[in-house]
């Protein structure tokens, strides 16, 4: 008997049972929470809304590099 094949089949069943027991929510609820997070944090997202002039160091003209 192939005991290693049996062992991995048992492990697979155990893993699937674990995955089946995971609590799930509806996509509509998950989506609405994703949206809420994005909108609540939009003001802090510099790449999305930009920042007031002078506060993004990468947008500042940098000092001359010595070649």
């Amino acid at each position, binding site marked *: 008997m*192939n*005991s290693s*094949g*049996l*062992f991995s*089949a*048992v*492990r*697979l*069943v*155990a893993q*699937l*049972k674990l*995955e*089946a027991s*995971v609590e*799930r*929510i*509806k*996509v*509509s*609820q*998950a*989506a*609405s*929470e*994703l*949206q809420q*997070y*994005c*909108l*609540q*944090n*939009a003001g*802090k*997202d*510099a*790449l*999305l809304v*930009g*920042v007031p002039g002078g506060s*993004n*160091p*990468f*947008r500042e003209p*940098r*000092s001359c*590099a010595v070649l």
Partner: protein
Amino acid sequence: AAAQSRPSALQSGESLATLKNESDSLKKKLEEERAKLHDVELNQVAEKVELVSALSIRTRRVLKGHGNKVLCMDWCKDKRRLVSSSQDGKVIVWDGYTLNKEHAVTMPCTWVMACAYAPSGCAVACGGLDNKCSVYPLSLDKNENLAAKKKSVAMHTNYLSGCSFTNSDMQLLTSSGDGTCALWDVESGQLLQSFHGHTADVLSLNLAPSETGNTFVSGGCDKKANVWDMLPCASVSCRLYDLRADREVAVYQKDSIIFGASSVDFSLSGRLLFAGYNDYTINVWDVLKGNRISVLFGHENRVSCVKVSPDGTSFASASWDTSLRIWA
């Protein structure tokens, strides 16, 4: 201990066939359960959200210095320094504001596929074809030879594809072409936990952001993305998977995109998704609405890695064209 580790099914004499039936029916049940929750698409929920207004993102810095494809990069927590690694065998630490190269290390192998900055900012980890991940403390003394203080931490049986420090400088998480991920103690080099489950090379990994930091996701050539508890491949689409709904909730793709995406990262609020592609471009997607907002041109070869800076004011991209760019 031996009796405890033997699965109980063996003791009750179940056959391989019975187990296969059980796993097949469990898989079917899982698919049905997940489908029941699929009541709407993310972009439908986001219909009433205002469109993202025009973005003014363009290249602000170009970091030149590598002699060959840049394969990986990571930001320092100070939001200004970066580490990059290349096929040329070099690892470079840059000051993103001034473009100064602060440190450079020559690895004993070419194809340094992975690099990571330590949370303290005092060390970097890197590796690739040497099958290892090594940690280099960064010296303030510019004349000191970094290679002398090198510490070999991780050992895999195939190439190192990814590495990341966990919440501290003390633990390192790695992914490898040998199909596994592993958690290591940096000080002793000891293997703390290994993660088996992928059936092919693991290509990338990412830690969930949290103080406790005990989950991570890995992606592999077996086309699976696995989410792991720590003690515990190239697709043309990018997909958003919600862990709480346990399913995919959005797909970001267009017919006109025929090249694979290599790397993605979210903007700070999660509204923008930056994805680097093999056609040398970076696409910016609206995460909620699913549409592409803009295409960023600049690189002259494949984009291998994109990462948003720690405070979200910019993002960096690494490319096979031997340069890195900072976009803001």
